[in-house]
């Protein structure tokens, strides 16, 4: 690991994004637009208050997962990964470079969505603002790390995109959004207990509705952070200096 190389990698990825205006615009604006759409569809301040945090939770994860899995797949197929693996660059330098670059993008994404929600849409936040940002950022990191990991199992962009529903939908169904987790069948609740998104959603609810950041909030933060770390290590394990 080398800080200068990590930062150079993050800068390189941001420069790549800078050349791609459309992707930046989509990343920055789509979550906000969907939240606005949701506001008018629900047309009820209280239900909106319950749904908005879930979107703030899901979007950074979803977008970062997709962008990272495609970006790393491109590195693998274009030969730049092989070239980098023949240089002093460490595996973590690459992973953290992606984490930092896309983490910054996630910050911008959440900032815009939050600003619009809190002002125009009259969204009510019981807890402190920073705690929501922490959860959203951790989600973005988790998405980045899982995207890196999953891209190792995709041979093409088609396959990589298909991993998104595989990773995403079970976590949403079992995350306690549609049915509270303690009302699920026992087996499903067990599965729900090991999926990181369940904790992210719970933490987000604590911030928005409860307003009190007790031990449970910090447990949720720790679980999501730990999962992101684990996914990063797994992602690093899929990067090989030598290939067949």
């Amino acid at each position, binding site marked *: 690991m080398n800080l200068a190389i990590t930062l150079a990698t993050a800068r390189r990825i941001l420069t790549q994004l800078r*050349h791609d205006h459309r992707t930046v615009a989509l990343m920055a604006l789509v979550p906000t637009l969907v939240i606005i759409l949701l506001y008018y569809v629900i047309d009820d301040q209280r239900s909106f208050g319950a749904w908005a945090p879930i979107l703030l939770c899901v979007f950074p994860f979803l977008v970062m997962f997709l962008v990272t899995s495609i970006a790393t797949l491109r590195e693998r197929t274009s030969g730049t990964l092989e070239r980098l693996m*023949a*240089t*002093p660059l460490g595996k973590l330098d690459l992973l953290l470079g992606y984490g930092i670059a896309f983490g910054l993008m996630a910050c911008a994404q959440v900032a815009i969505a939050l600003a619009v929600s809190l002002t125009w849409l009259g969204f009510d936040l019981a807890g402190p603002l920073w705690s929501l940002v922490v959860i959203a950022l951790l989600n973005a990191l988790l998405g980045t790390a899982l995207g890196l990991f999953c891209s190792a199992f995709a041979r093409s962009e088609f396959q990589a995109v298909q991993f998104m529903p595989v990773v995403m939908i079970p976590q949403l169904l079992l995350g306690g959004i549609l049915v509270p987790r303690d009302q699920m069948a026992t087996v499903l609740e067990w599965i729900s207990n090991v999926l990181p998104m369940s904790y992210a959603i719970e933490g987000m609810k604590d911030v928005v509705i409860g307003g009190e950041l007790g031990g449970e909030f910090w447990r949720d933060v720790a679980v999501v952070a730990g999962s992101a770390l684990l996914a990063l290590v797994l992602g690093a394990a899929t990067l090989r*200096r030598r290939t067949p």
Partner: protein
Amino acid sequence: MMNLSEPAIAVRDLRVERGGVEVLHGLTFEVPRGQVTGLLGPSGCGKTTLMRAIVGVQIVTGGEVAVLGRPAGDPSLRRMIGYSTQNPAVYRDLSVVENLRYFAAVLNAPKSDVDRVIEEVGLSSVAGQLGGTLSGGQLNRASLAVALLGCPELVVLDEPTVGLDPVLRQELWRLFQSLADRGVTLIVSSHVMDEAARCQRLIVMREGEILADDTPHELREHTRTTDLEEAFLRLIEERTAA
């Protein structure tokens, strides 16, 4: 320090399998320092696999590869080897300069290196252009430029002159020679026989085996022909007769 008497690369009984099929059948050879060594042979003969084994990115089944006195793939070698793959490994969504700045940072090469290598491969006029807008030959040269960053002791180039016009090709071969004159060891693969004459040493491959390992002059003497294409055919005849 550099020991000139020691070969840059020593390969002993190298065997590589890809997809369950053996593609290199126990190669043994040495590459002297400070020379341009040409790796010749038809497409699919194992040139790229051999180069990958030398750079240390190929999983090998057996044998030994020593590069600059160390086992291939040793972490200390990563700063000393410049490697350019057959498909240009540069970011299409970055400009030539941005690509080189990034790889220079990874290699901890001085910033001035970026301008130097752009000049060396003759890309100054398109340095600000995105990779995706370059022609195939320009992209190839951008990839070659990355391999020249940070003054490597060994430069491994896989088909660096494909698709280039003759003038550019000549300029690149002059560049390779000037690097060799400075003490850099170069391995350049090609499937074009007319490039062989520009190397000091030739390794001729076919179907995962080495047909010949000689100077171009000796090779011509041995096969009694002045044409290297013809020499290649004679070598194959010799093999099948034996």
